[in-house]
């Protein structure tokens, strides 16, 4: 019984860490994989999702609907940002980083000025259960489930819908897609909006578990970047396995020496991986396959 509960505890930690990595990086990975854009304001989009969700909960919406609302609102903000700024910077990746960093400063500081340094949180629902000597949160299990549902949903969206086909066509050969009548500008806008909405979803999902502050996005940003760097350009072949592998790494080191050691181990793993597999896991998998 003791061993079983210890194993459960460890699996729970791995699942928790991997779900966090998947959710934190999904929006960033979509935007980077499909558009080649690194969005430095990713953390602020997550923060918007969380704030939107908390506001909707306070307005009386049940939590799942509130999360959807927060996510949708963040997606709309994403589309607006793409139309105003990002669309002028395609083909200038470094400038895009600098510009989105500017946006990130404006958003986080603007939120601080408008809404103050803290915001009432929604409170973690569902309570907890015990296995062996420790108690675990039901909501964290829901988050793990959400990460899996998100990956499956994204896969279906990219591979089974018309939008997915048009988006993949645009990524592969923008000029050809445009010549065949695809409105690539709209596709880019929607893709960026999708990335923002996913970030918002993450914010909404984690909103009940976190302290709501304007800089809460920075909690996610390190893990998100690290996962995308290790994963490479493909969300399914890269981000998902990267999140799994890094989740295990992080869980081992966190349970051994604490939170910070977990993060340091994550970074060391990343630096080693990019030295060995410069194009990330997905680049390596694609090369092995061909």
């Amino acid at each position, binding site marked *: 019984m003791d061993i079983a509960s210890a194993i459960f505890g460890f699996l729970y930690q791995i699942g928790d860490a991997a779900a966090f990595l998947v959710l934190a990086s999904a929006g960033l990975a979509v935007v980077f994989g499909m558009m080649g854009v*690194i969005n430095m304001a990713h953390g602020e989009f997550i923060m918007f999702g969380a704030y939107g969700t908390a506001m909707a909960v306070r307005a009386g919406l049940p939590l799942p609907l509130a999360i959807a609302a927060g996510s949708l609102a963040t997606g709309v903000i994403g589309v607006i940002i793409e139309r105003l700024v990002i669309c002028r910077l395609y083909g200038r990746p470094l400038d895009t980083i*600098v510009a989105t960093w500017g946006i990130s*400063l404006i958003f986080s500081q603007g939120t601080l*000025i408008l809404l103050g340094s803290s915001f009432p949180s929604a409170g973690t629902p569902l309570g907890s259960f015990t296995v062996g000597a420790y108690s675990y949160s039901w909501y964290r299990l829901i988050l793990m489930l959400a990460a899996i549902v998100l990956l499956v949903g994204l896969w279906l969206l990219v591979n089974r819908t018309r939008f997915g086909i048009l988006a993949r066509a645009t990524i592969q050969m923008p000029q050809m897609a445009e010549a065949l009548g695809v409105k690539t500008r709209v596709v880019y806008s929607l893709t960026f909006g999708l990335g923002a909405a996913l970030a918002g979803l993450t914010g909404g999902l984690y909103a009940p578990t976190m302290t709501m502050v304007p800089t809460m996005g920075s909690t996610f940003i390190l893990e998100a970047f690290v996962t995308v760097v290790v994963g490479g350009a493909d969300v399914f072949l890269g981000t998902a396995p990267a999140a799994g592998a890094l989740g295990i790494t992080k869980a081992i080191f966190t349970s051994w020496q604490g939170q910070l050691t977990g993060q*340091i181990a994550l*970074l060391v793993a*990343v630096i080693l991986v990019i030295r060995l597999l410069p194009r990330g896991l997905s680049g390596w998998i694609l090369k092995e396959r061909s």
Partner: protein
Amino acid sequence: MSRLREFFSRINGPQTFGSGPRFWIPLGVLLLIAYVFPLFSDDYTIGNVAYFFTWLFMAAGLCLMWGYGGTLSFGQTAFFGIGGYTYGIVTLNFGADNGVTIYALVASVLLGAIVATLLGYFLFYGRINGVFLGIVTLAVSILLERFMAQTAGPQWRIGEARLNGFNGMNGMPALTIPWPGGDISLPAGAGFYYVILSILLIVYFGIRILVNSRFGNILVAIRENPQRAEMLGYDVRRFQLGAFVIGSALASLSGVFYTCWGQYITPSSMSLTSAALPIVWVAIGGRGDITASLLGALLTLAVFQTLTVNGAQYALIMMGVLLLVNVLTAPEGLILQLFRFRFKLSPRSQ
């Protein structure tokens, strides 16, 4: 002798703006003003300008990496922190006598260069492209901040030096120059100002010579087209690593001077917001030219301080807006575009 003349002739060249009297006379006047201004000013203003100068080394390093080498590093603040903390740890342990502060300065810059070499080896020899380089260096910076922030408590000490977690280290001695007949201590005043201005000038001319030399020309060739440079037989990785190490070492130098100036260093000097600042300075000035970068950095620092004094919370928003407007309307940088206008220069032929 002719070698020496050739060496110094590289101060002007294809990679730097400005040559001839129309450039050097205004710059000379500017330098003259910088040298005589302490005679007519109060201690507070002198200290404040010296404070601006402490940051310029970091900006110069970023200009070399990003503007000339095309590799955007977000890790300048990490090396800034390494420099500052190393200086603090060494001087708190060994005091300021017998030229220890000078050794501490050299050790801090060396340590920065060594860490940069290690990190840069993994990055450049793994052929990390621009965007990923930025992210990994940023991650290093953030992690270093988080690490230093949790070093509160008496168990975190190196010799005599307590790391003090989020509050940072303080009480380091000022830069002290050993001198026959009594060491000269240089707290944040006119003496420190002259030392830092002189070192800044050496760095400025050094970088001008560097970028107009073979190294700089190859670096620019790599920025313009890495494949072509590689086909011509240059090891792209080696040159990018070189620029990264020099740039990071300059950031460490900034950290040392900053620590000397205020006699404290905190983990927040490595935070996400701090990491954005050097990018802002160099982007606004014009990353493609060292003179434009430094003038832009100085100007932005002064404007930013005025903004902070008059409305602290709006300053960061203004910074973001400035960055955005700059990227969208003057991607080459405001000062650099002004230079073009002033000197009626067409975009530099490359």
